[in-house]
């Protein structure tokens, strides 16, 4: 019995969907990206201005009401990270396509705009597989640890003056602690998979992330010495006259390199080197577990450029056109400045990803220990000296 009816001319032709995009439409692409960024901006405003205002109006801004408010903000931030991942994966694919002289996803949705939504839905409904050789508890825990470690960095990143979940005076130390945690997730995931490729990927990830954590921490220290505070809000405030990128140029370059390594981004993508290790530490992950690794990667791809902006490019600072600082409109404008600056840095990271080949593993370690750490120490001493004679 023949299960599928054969057409009369015995030729199956693919269905042509209703629209016929026969050329790239750059204006439509820009519209789609702008729509995503607009949603992002709306969520930021809602999280940092809308929710507190709502709770203040209800009179719930003390005790359990305050806890509830923070919980609601965290839920909104989770939504924000989903929007970031959907947008950045789309932009990455479109940009890599452009660089390789082709068009990326373009047929599903306006200019391919909902391609990543389809991807996410598919991953949601795909079988979540646990190999027989895996350590089930650790295997299940690892994607969550990775994602939570990346996601927790949102707590101290200021989107505008006062728009931060926890403007703690140990913000930098918190950042170091939390960003090191994501190495645990990758390491646990790789080791618990019971797969040789995953094990090698995880060991590489551990070595790489621990090595590059040190120059990263030293650069954090340099910034703290220069600004005289560990709070990210104060660091941004201290840059009102002069952005840190000029006096701390050396540390800035080191920070960019170290955050590329921290992101496991080309040219430092050893943990998931596709030509060597199949998919590295996430080789045994499928479905939603894999999606969480993916989500964590792209949330970090937003957060580390955001930290570049906070540390070296004046955070939310920009012309306010006479708006009263602290008001809602000023906050919205400042968060827009912050978003645009971050977007530029994300683009530069993608540009690097599209250009450079991968380093060799031993070169990577040599570079970290023989070049990055001495230079970072030198940058720290230089910053301290400059601060003594300048301020």
């Amino acid at each position, binding site marked *: 019995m*023949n*299960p*599928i009816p054969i057409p009369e001319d015995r030729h*199956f*032709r*693919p*269905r042509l969907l209703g629209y016929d995009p026969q050329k790239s439409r750059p204006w439509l692409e820009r519209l789609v990206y702008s729509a995503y960024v607009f949603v992002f901006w709306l969520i930021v405003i809602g999280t940092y201005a809308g929710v507190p205002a709502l709770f203040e109006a209800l009179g719930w801004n003390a005790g359990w009401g305050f806890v509830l408010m923070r919980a609601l903000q965290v839920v909104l931030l989770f939504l924000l990270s989903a929007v970031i991942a959907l947008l950045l994966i789309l932009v990455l*694919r479109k940009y890599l*396509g452009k660089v*390789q*002289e*082709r*068009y*990326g*996803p*373009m*047929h*599903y949705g306006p200019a*391919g705009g909902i*391609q990543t*939504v*389809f*991807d996410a*839905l*598919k991953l*949601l*409904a*795909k*079988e*979540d*597989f646990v190999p027989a050789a895996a350590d089930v508890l650790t295997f299940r825990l690892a994607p969550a640890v990775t994602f939570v470690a990346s996601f927790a960095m949102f707590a101290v990143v200021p989107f505008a003056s006062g728009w931060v979940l926890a403007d703690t005076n140990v913000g930098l130390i918190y950042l170091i602690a939390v960003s090191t945690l994501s190495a645990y997730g990758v390491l646990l995931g790789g080791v618990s998979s019971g797969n040789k490729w995953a094990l090698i990927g995880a060991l590489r990830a551990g070595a790489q992330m621990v090595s590059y954590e040190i120059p990263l921490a030293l650069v954090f220290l340099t910034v703290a010495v220069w600004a005289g505070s560990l709070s990210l809000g104060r660091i941004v405030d201290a840059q009102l006259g002069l952005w840190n990128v000029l006096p701390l140029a050396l540390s800035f370059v080191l920070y960019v390199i170290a955050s590329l390594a921290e992101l496991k981004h080309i040219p430092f993508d050893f943990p998931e080197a*596709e030509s060597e290790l*199949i*998919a590295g530490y*996430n*080789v*045994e*992950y*499928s*479905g939603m577990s*894999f999606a969480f690794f993916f989500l964590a990667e792209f949330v970090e791809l937003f957060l580390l450029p955001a930290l570049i902006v906070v540390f070296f490019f004046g955070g939310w600072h920009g012309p306010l056109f006479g708006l009263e600082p602290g008001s809602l409109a000023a906050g919205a404008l400042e968060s827009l400045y912050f978003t645009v600056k971050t977007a530029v840095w994300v683009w530069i990271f993608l540009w690097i990803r599209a250009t450079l080949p991968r380093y060799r593993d031993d070169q990577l370690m040599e570079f970290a220990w023989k070049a990055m750490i001495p230079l970072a120490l030198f940058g720290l001493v230089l910053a301290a000296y400059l601060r003594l004679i300048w301020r």
Partner: protein
Amino acid sequence: MGLLGSDERPRDIILGTLDDLINMARSRSMWPLTFGIACCAIEMMATWDPKIDADRFGMFFRNTPRQADVMIVSGTVNKKLAKRLRRLYDQMAEPKWVISMGACANQGGPFRQGYSVVEGVDKIVPVDVYIPGCPPRPEALLQALLLLRDKIADRELRYQKPREIPADYDVLAEPGKDGRLPVL
């Protein structure tokens, strides 16, 4: 492939709509496995080059079978390779589909009387779409991928079983330590 591994579309209007939505997403985000066998694999690579660019339809290669949805069998399958191919197929997470590309994978092609050749990959894995040709054009592969998209997205077609081909157990079975053939 149904929503929750079921064999038919749910009658419920909500679950049915959800089933359609999920399968629409599946059909528009098919990630093939990086798995090339022979000369057809060259044409498979050419399908993702700037001239054809299957990435327009949201397809890109995943290296690990756990994250791949579609296996493109692109070349002659030897009896030695057949076990590995079946193993890769078993490692792929549900739902999964197979495209048989080229004459050799379809029924052995010019090598079909060879002592070492599996005459048709559908004896090892269930095949959804076949492409004739030796090798097929990259456009033909894209056509096959789009036919697979239409099959998954169609609420009738996606529950149709492929034509039943008796499995070739001689090819797949490998004697265990006790010298006996395992039950497949």
